[in-house]
């Protein structure tokens, strides 16, 4: 079980080895790629920032929760930060288990929770020349609450 933030290119082929076990019949992986568009805007590139200490803690908690919920063998998640180009791999999740059902469910659970809970931020740079922090620019409202 490992959650990691790194600035260099992700190498799923290498991290996958940690998941192999003779008792495992199923392996499911998710890769998040940098897409050339988002919500109607043409995207040029992305910048990811992470609050590394807390991101690693919260990411590890998510993997532990996945292992408690689903009878999986192992799970690893690696998130890249820094400047990424279109097509680059931003996040990788790999899960191995005896049977496929739990590998699918755990992999989905992990990426969903990572996107919701782990302190990592994404700034999109658009073809138009604009840029913005995803979920921060659009959701700015006058009557806000931070409580």
């Amino acid at each position, binding site marked *: 079980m490992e959650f990691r933030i790194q600035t260099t290119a992700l190498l799923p082929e290498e991290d996958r080895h940690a998941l192999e076990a003779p008792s495992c019949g199923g392996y499911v992986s998710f890769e998040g790629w940098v897409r050339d568009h988002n919500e109607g805007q043409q995207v040029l590139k992305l910048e*990811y920032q992470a*609050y590394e200490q807390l991101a690693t803690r919260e990411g590890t908690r998510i993997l532990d929760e996945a292992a408690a919920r689903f009878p999986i063998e192992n799970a690893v998640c690696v998130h890249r930060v820094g400047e990424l180009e279109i097509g680059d791999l931003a996040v990788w999740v790999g899960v191995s288990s005896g049977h496929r059902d739990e590998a699918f469910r755990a992999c989905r659970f992990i990426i969903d929770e990572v996107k919701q809970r782990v302190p*990592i*931020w994404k700034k999109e740079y658009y073809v138009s020349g604009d840029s913005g*922090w995803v*979920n*921060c620019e659009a959701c700015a409202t006058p009557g806000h609450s*931070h409580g």
Partner: protein
Amino acid sequence: MKTLAIEYFAIFRDHAGTDKETLHTEADTPADLFAELSVRHGFPELQTVKVAINDEFGDWNTQLNEGDSVVFIPPVAGG
């Protein structure tokens, strides 16, 4: 007066113009501190902001202590 270590990320970093600062403040709670810094740095109004104290999620109304590190967490967007 206490001394706090503030670290900024994402949209707060852009507005603060720095990734960290050491602050002498009268703020008792993260809520007080956020109000103070929002004025100083002109933070945008965001739907939900969380706070971390000493690298763990914390409460807005907890008592801040001398030497605490504080991070305000705008809406996340990993993946």
